[in-house]
């Protein structure tokens, strides 16, 4: 079961936060095809947000073909975003952790690491790598 968090100070509409967290779960394999998403009532009791917001997030995911609402039962995952790349996650994660370790040793704090990653990401995108 996926746990939602909603942050109102983030400036991102709550329904988008919910939808994004589901996509995130699908990407990381936390959610798989056939899994049931928490019901609207469960979500609002968990994070205290408007029920229509949850419905709206689920509707958006449904339009994207990621989930399917079954009347009277609930909402189920129909497609995953993890794909074949999921198998590579473990190895990539390990090298990334090793890299973070070396960055720390080099004296970078969290903000500097963030900035560096952001910068590299940006350059890579411009070079057409990412």
């Amino acid at each position: 079961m996926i746990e939602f968090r909603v942050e109102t100070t983030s400036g991102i509409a709550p329904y988008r936060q919910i939808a994004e967290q589901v996509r995130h779960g699908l990407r990381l394999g936390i959610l798989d095809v056939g899994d049931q998403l928490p019901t609207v009532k469960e979500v609002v009791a968990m994070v205290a947000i408007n029920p229509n917001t949850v419905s709206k997030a689920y509707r958006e995911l449904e339009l994207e073909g990621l989930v399917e609402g079954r009347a009277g039962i609930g909402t189920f995952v129909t497609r995953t975003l993890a794909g074949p790349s999921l198998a590579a996650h473990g190895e990539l994660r390990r090298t990334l952790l090793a890299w973070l370790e070396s960055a720390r040793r080099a004296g970078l704090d969290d903000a500097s690491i963030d900035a560096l990653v952001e910068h590299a990401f940006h350059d890579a995108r411009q070079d057409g790598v990412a």
Partner: protein
Amino acid sequence: MTDAIEATGLGKRYGRRWALRNTSLRVPEGRVVGLVGSNGAGKTTLLHLSVGLLDPSEGHITVLGDRPGSGARQLARVGFVAQDAPLYNRMSVNEHFRMGVRLNPHWDATVEVDLHDRLDLDPRQRAGALSGGQRAQLALALAIGKRPELLVLDEPVASLDPLARREFMQSLMSLAADGLSVVLSSHLLSDIERVCDYVIVLAHGEVRLAGDVDALLAEHRVLTGPRRDPLRLPAGQTIIRERHTDRQSTVVVRTTGEVLDPSWTVSELGLEELVLAYMESATTPTTRLRSVGSPP
């Protein structure tokens, strides 16, 4: 479908002072409505009018299709938690539920069990000895025990600590998920943003803005650009609030279409910012509100 609340030309006067004027509203059923405004803007007056604790000085209000407080049947359809959750301090928690059973024909006994499950209260404890959070929860349980179709709450979380506030909102949203219409007033815009899908902004006893939150956000934009004073905007764009520094102008507009002027940086705004823009526009005379109303 009948509206949860419908008001036309509604006004309430205390002596010579108008606490609320020219209020026309239609709030559909099944919504969680946030009522916001500064102190003295008329929030409590509007809520009291909608539960029949006050009578209008002018105009009309109907709640679920009937005049508020017009009889025992109408009273049974609307649950209310007044500001600071008044309870009988010398009566125990238990006795409050007995009162609920005696005074309401469709009483739901599960609210009592549910409250004890969640809060671990001593049923013999006097209401006067409860914490603010416990009082609010007990008052809410009493209001929903009558199985209302509409729940009206006046600043329900104002006196609660963050944890109690979260628990209260969780209970409330579970109810909303079951289809209960809710109207609540609050100063806490972050709470409103979280739980409400419909918002009403009051200032100086008048409605400045009312409507579906998503629809309202879709029609408003913040424009930032080089200073322009006086400011002229194309038809279809209404200035809600403008601010000028010596170099820059920042304008909140309500617009029917896209903003095409390339000299503006256009961005969306959140509910909190939107509400503040309307509240401010009502206080600063130089940035007077030029158009008010709810979307069609």
